[in-house]
């Protein structure tokens, strides 16, 4: 046991010295393994913690903010929504199907471990250049994996987002989000309590899966990525489904004191965190752990990342009730230890004490880095631009990878199971899922525009929050809270750390202004291949609530409606897709985010929807105003005639924020109301007919627009 070995475990010299101080002796192999995973970036947040602390996490409706397995907010009628987003980037690069599948499985467990029945899954995906042959294989595996797991467990996948960019070539991002519902008064936490209480293991057996997955997720890929492959975990969604039902059945009794899933770093992190949070000690007898393989060492069992397992502290005497439930569901069940008053974790295996570590210093003396930051270089200035050709540019834009129809993807996800999906993928700016047996509904979305964040981390991250808030608002729902999934490169590089710090500041600013706190999240660093980082990608998962699902508004316009632009004429082309796809430039500053205007415009839209006069609503985002109109028409299968308007590219394709397009029966009335509220508004035109007639008189048939829009994914994937 020495420094060299510690280094192989991912502990640097300083960290290893700290281990020696805490232990007062040379640690055993298993002990070193425990330190290494608990102090890995993935588990300890050593590079990000100082920044995450600055996020706003409070609101009257927040029941549990960050620090639990998932965030919990009150949604009314005595209910709580529990949600979180988590990354599975590195595993998805190594084995796209299993990486994505186990990502979904992991986030589901974070949510049902708190007592919630999972009711919706979403995801946020980033892939490399579509022209790169590897991209197709990764897209295929990730989409199949998400569907394969989510469809089988019976949780509808209702939304998500996908971008393509060469910066993700060697490092795709797979962020999965789960939302669950529980009675607000019956939330289960992970802090262990009650000295002597039994510690119980349930779920699948332990194998040698994913050993050192947590440390792998904390290191960038070099050319040796291949050799890291044996750690691949395989998901078993069937067992997960049984685990959900069995845990919820047990949660209906009073048997549970504390419960936590075994996620990254498996038995180690779950036992250390549960005991640590409860201020107690824990003693584990590994001989009792259900095992799939023979001859596993204590080290292997403590670090295994076998999926579909949970750790539960039971009330004394509750073993019988619990065992009966898990046996009914044909899941493994074993009492593997008990709580102690020693404040230490003691691990026994085959008559030997393999680990004996004081828990307080393991947590308190975990490394915490204030890594140096450097500002991002300013974006390239915008060069000379071609004139906009509205019809041609629109057809090209709706066909581009970042705007093309995602139907090929969501057609592989069961979005209706559960019988509560009011707005399926593609039907509204946020998915709408009704709460079983109530009128109440949730509005759910994931958002981030990484090219904005790369150009200006603070503004770009604020934009991501604003867009999530706007997407929820556009359905008529009230935004409540977010979960954030911070995907960045190597934090030891000052520019990357600067991106991270800037993004946190931007999120914080937007959350405060919009009353939209962060209640959970996840950090994924070292997303680099061969030294080149991904675009900074702080993915935001937003949750809102609608008192009556029947009030939800989608984005599909119907014939005979007035189209009204709210929020002011767009003009900002910096970092727009038009600039990239039509002018061939990734340049300029991202659109400024005026959060006061955002809030004013959004509150107005929400009030109009509540008043009942809005038939459809869509925010102006990627691609700008004309793309937003095109999407509303395609979704509603109607054409439109647009009236006189400026012909500048900035007006039709600028990506200014805080703007919405509404389809209403009476445009004049809406204009008057907007004027009264001091909100800029403009009548754009009227829906109807077979095509989109532009102010210059050109008409694009709906069929042309649709075939352009729907071509990309099938062409990429089915060739």
């Amino acid at each position, binding site marked *: 046991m020495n420094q060299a070995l510690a280094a192989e475990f991912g502990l640097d010299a300083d960290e290893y010295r700290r281990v020696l101080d805490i232990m007062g002796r040379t640690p055993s192999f298993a002990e070193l393994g425990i330190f290494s995973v608990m102090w890995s970036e993935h588990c300890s947040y050593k590079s990000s913690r100082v920044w995450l602390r600055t996020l706003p996490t409070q609101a009257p409706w927040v029941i549990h903010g960050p620090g639990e397995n998932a965030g919990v907010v009150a949604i009314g009628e005595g209910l709580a929504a529990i949600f979180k987003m988590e990354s599975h980037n590195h595993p998805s690069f190594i084995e796209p199907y299993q990486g994505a599948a186990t990502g979904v499985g992991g986030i589901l467990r974070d949510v049902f471990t708190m007592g919630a029945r999972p009711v919706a899954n979403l995801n946020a995906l980033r892939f490399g250049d579509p022209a790169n042959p590897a991209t197709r294989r990764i897209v295929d595996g990730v989409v*199949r994996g998400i*569907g*394969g797991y989510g*469809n*089988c*467990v*019976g949780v509808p996948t209702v939304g998500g987002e996908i971008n393509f960019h060469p910066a993700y070539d060697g490092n795709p991002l797979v962020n999965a989000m789960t939302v669950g519902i529980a009675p607000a008064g019956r939330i289960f936490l992970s802090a262990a309590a009650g000295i002597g209480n039994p510690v119980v293991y349930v779920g699948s057996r332990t194998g040698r899966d994913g050993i050192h997955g947590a440390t792998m997720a904390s290191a960038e890929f070099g050319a040796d990525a291949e050799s890291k492959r044996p750690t691949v975990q395989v998901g*078993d*969604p*069937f*067992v997960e*489904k*049984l685990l959900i039902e069995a845990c919820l059945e047990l949660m209906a009794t009073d048997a549970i004191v504390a419960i936590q899933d075994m996620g990254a770093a498996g038995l180690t992190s779950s036992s250390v965190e549960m005991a640590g949070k409860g201020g107690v000690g824990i003693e584990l007898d590994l001989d009792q752990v259900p095992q799939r393989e023979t001859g596993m060492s204590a080290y292997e069992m403590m670090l295994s990342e076998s999926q579909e397992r949970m750790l539960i502290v039971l009330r004394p005497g509750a073993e019988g009730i619990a065992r009966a439930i898990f046996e009914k*569901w*044909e899941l493994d069940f074993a009492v593997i230890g008990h709580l102690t008053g020693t404040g230490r974790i003691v691990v026994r295996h085959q008559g030997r004490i393999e680990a004996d570590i004081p828990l307080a210093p393991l947590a308190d003396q975990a490394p915490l880095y204030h890594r140096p930051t450097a500002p991002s270089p300013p974006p390239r200035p915008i060069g000379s631009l071609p004139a906009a050709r509205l019809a041609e540019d629109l057809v090209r834009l709706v066909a581009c990878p970042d705007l093309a129809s995602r139907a090929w993807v*969501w*057609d*592989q*996800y*069961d*979005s*209706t*199971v*559960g*019988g*509560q*999906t*009011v707005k*399926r993928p593609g039907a509204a700016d946020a998915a709408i899922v*009704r709460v*079983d047996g109530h009128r109440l509904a949730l509005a759910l979305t994931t958002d981030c525009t990484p090219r904005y964040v790369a150009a200006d981390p603070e503004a770009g991250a604020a934009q991501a929050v604003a867009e999530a808030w706007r997407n929820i608002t556009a359905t008529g729902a009230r935004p409540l809270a977010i979960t954030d999934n911070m995907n960045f490169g190597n934090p030891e590089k000052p520019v990357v750390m600067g991106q991270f710090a800037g993004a946190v500041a931007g999120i914080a600013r937007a959350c405060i202004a919009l009353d939209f706190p962060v209640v959970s999240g996840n950090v994924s660093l070292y997303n680099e291949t061969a030294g080149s980082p991904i675009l900074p990608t702080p993915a935001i998962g937003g949750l809102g609530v609608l008192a009556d*699902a*029947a009030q939800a508004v989608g984005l599909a316009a119907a014939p005979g409606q007035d189209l009204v632009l709210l929020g002011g004429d767009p003009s900002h082309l910096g970092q727009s897709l038009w600039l990239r796809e039509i002018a061939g430039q990734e340049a300029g500053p991202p659109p400024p985010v005026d959060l006061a205007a955002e809030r004013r415009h959004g509150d107005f839209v929400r009030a109009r929807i509540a008043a009942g006069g809005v038939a459809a609503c869509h925010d102006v985002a990627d691609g700008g105003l004309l793309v937003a109109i095109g999407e509303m028409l395609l979704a509603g299968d109607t054409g439109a005639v647009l009236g006189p308007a400026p012909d500048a590219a900035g007006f039709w394709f600028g990506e200014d924020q805080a703007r919405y397009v509404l389809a209403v029966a009476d445009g004049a009335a809406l204009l008057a109301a907007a004027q009264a509220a001091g909100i800029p508004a403009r009548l754009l035109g009227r829906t109807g007919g077979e095509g989109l007639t532009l102010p210059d008189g050109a008409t694009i048939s709906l069929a042309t627009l649709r075939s352009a829009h729907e071509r990309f994914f099938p062409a990429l994937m089915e060739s």
Partner: protein
Amino acid sequence: MRAGIVVFPGINRERDMAIALERASGRAPRMVWHRETDLQGLDLIVIPGGFSYGDYLRCGAMAAQSPVMESIRAHATRGGHVLGVCNGFQILVESQLLPGALLRNASLRFLSMDCHLRVERADTDFTAHYQRGQVIRAPMAHGDGNYFADDATLDRLEGEGLVAFRYVAPDGSVTAAANRNGSARSIAGILSPNRRILGLMPHPEDLVDPLLGGTDGAPLFEGLAASLAA
């Protein structure tokens, strides 16, 4: 109508089905755990959708061997009504209560979208509240819905009028494009010779509420409730 919904491990559309049945009949169905064998008093047994046993091996194969299937077989022999939807249909063909097999979708991909179905006959307890030839919409969500049977079986099904639903275009025409999973003769649902057992792939139970996009599935349950009214 006293309905029971059979729950195998991995079934996941049992609540959707319960909602649809209760909406139509005003009576909450009984949930039947797969180890139960006493189905006394039930008029209708429903095997809902999902992934029984993870759909490992073959969809429905392991559930078809479950103890409750013997009781379901006895119920069917007594002339009782059985409805199998999606995984339920797969279980019915695996247990040979209905002929044929459900193979992997021709595209080899999971298909989750609305499809259009043509009601091939309206003189059954399942379809009594539809018109013959009516085109209805229903969500589908399956990876293995590609109906297969040998030609003799298919000819018999057609000849005896046991095809209940077919995948069609919105105008009611049978087209290859509308038959997304590649089913033989565009078959989406079939009946037993006594027309008391129906198996179908799409999910009428997920379209019984205007809020969720339509009510095209409701007449199936309302028809059953009317036919089986106690």
